[in-house]
Each structure stands twice: as C-alpha cells, then as structure tokens.
C-alpha cells in the first residue's frame, strides 16, 4: 500500500464546493473550521482555475515537527493524524502549516482555541475504529469501512481524487495523456516560467553592467 494522497484536477474543478459540504456533513466539523476549502484563482475572469485544498498529509509534516506535546503521528498508510486528548491548542501547527490545514473552532469565548481540528483523510483518530468516541472527536472513519474520503467520493466532476497514491497518480496520468499532454504539464519549469515545448519563450532580462 502506497501513501494515501489527494490530487485535485484543476482542469475539472468547477468550484461547486461539494467536497467542502460533504466533509462538513460527514465529519460533523465544528463551527469555524473548514477542513477542506476550494481556492479559486482569477475568480470571475475567463480561464479561472479552482482547486480543492485540505491537509496534504505531508511525508515530512511541519505540524508534526513543531508540536510541543507530540500529539501528531503518521499511520503506515501515510495519513497524518493527531490525538486531541494530548493537544493543548497552542496553534503552532497552524502557524507551521503552509496549507492552513490545522484549524481551531471559533465558538470559544475570549479567543479560546480549543483542540485543533483538521482533515483526517476520513481515517478517524487514535480511538477504536468506528466507535462513537472516535466520531465525536475526529469524524467518520471511512477508511475502516473500506471507503475513500467523502470529499473525493462526492466530487461531482471527479476532479478530486483520493486514495492510494499509485492508483490516483495513474488515474491522473491517464487523464493527462487523454488531453494530449505529456510530461511538460508537470515540473518546476512549467510552474515557474520555462515555456512548454513548441511555444516561444520570453526573452531573458539583459544582465546589468556592474
């Protein structure tokens, strides 16, 4: 079993927020917490792109690295989870995460944070799988029911893929090939400025004389 991963296909995402709603409903997410959010670039402009973002379940998770009480752990399937009974609500994980995944409920008085809550890949937490206690603290444990996360299974356009990393990567690769693209759609150069094959590139800026 490879690591469990999400991939969101920005070509297919229509910003319906079905994934957000599915997650909130399935896991009874507290007020003020959005375990999953849809981020849209150039909203309202032709060619806008949306992508669904939640916890990335990082291999080298910064939230885990900074936690002062060591409440995080990674399962053998690569899912990053935490123990709410140990969590002290300091917020360090929220500061450390580049994706804004760890969040805190907003219904506490005087800015009281309470326990951190984040996407669990629908894998629950360190309680008995499928128990009431696990549901109350961490939401549904769909993995233990042989299901994939609610967000991915509910996606109306199958933009959001979730599951075994090898399998979802293969599904996505098939889509990319069917769109007539190849390896040029990935990589640092594509994201940060190297032109795709066959297209004219921007002229490099002239070097300044010292």
């Amino acid at each position, binding site marked *: 079993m490879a690591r469990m991963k999400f991939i969101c296909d920005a070509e297919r995402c229509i910003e319906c927020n079905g994934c957000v709603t599915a997650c909130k409903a399935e896991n009874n997410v507290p007020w003020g917490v959005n375990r999953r959010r849809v981020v849209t670039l150039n909203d309202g402009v032709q060619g806008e792109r949306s992508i669904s973002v939640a916890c990335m379940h990082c291999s080298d998770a910064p939230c885990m690295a900074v936690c002062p009480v060591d409440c995080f752990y990674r399962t053998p399937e690569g899912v990053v989870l935490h123990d709410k*009974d140990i969590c002290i609500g300091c917020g360090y994980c929220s500061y450390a995460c580049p994706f804004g995944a760890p969040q805190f409920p907003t219904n506490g008085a005087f800015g009281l944070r309470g326990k951190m809550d984040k996407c669990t890949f629908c894998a629950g937490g360190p*309680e008995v799988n499928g128990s009431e206690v696990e549901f109350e603290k961490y939401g549904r*444990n769909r993995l233990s029911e*042989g299901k*994939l996360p609610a967000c991915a299974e509910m996606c109306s356009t199958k933009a959001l893929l979730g599951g075994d990393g090898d*399998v979802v990567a293969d599904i996505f690769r098939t889509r990319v090939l*069917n769109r007539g693209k190849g390896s040029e759609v990935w990589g640092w150069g594509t994201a940060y400025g190297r032109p795709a094959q066959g297209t004219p590139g921007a002229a490099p800026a002239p070097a300044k004389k010292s």
Partner: protein
Amino acid sequence: MVTMVLVGCGEKVQTIPVGSERKADSQPWQNQDKRFVAPGWTPGNEASWNAQMANRAQGQNDYAPRK
C-alpha cells in the same frame, strides 16, 4: 530528588505521566462496528482491505473499462 526540588520551588513536574502519552491507533482494516462497512471485503483482513481500496479508487476513473 529532582521532583522534591521542583515541588519545593513551586514548579510542576514536566515529565509525561503514564497514561497521558499519545494513544496507539488501530489498523484501518480493523472495525468493530459492521453497520456501515462497504460490501465486498472482509473486515480484519489486511489484503482484503488493500484490494478494496484499490478497487474503490477505480470508481474515480472515467477511463476504467466498464463491466
């Protein structure tokens, strides 16, 4: 000795007491509650769970061959 010094100075002991460590998690193929388990695999069986995950992920694949 250290504990006595800390108590005497008004400091709390900061070692993690037994029972307060992070709890161990169970394997994802273990499930006591059978009510919501998806059909087609055997709860408690790791290989069956792995196959179920791979099979279920293909439900997201538009290019998978139709039965």
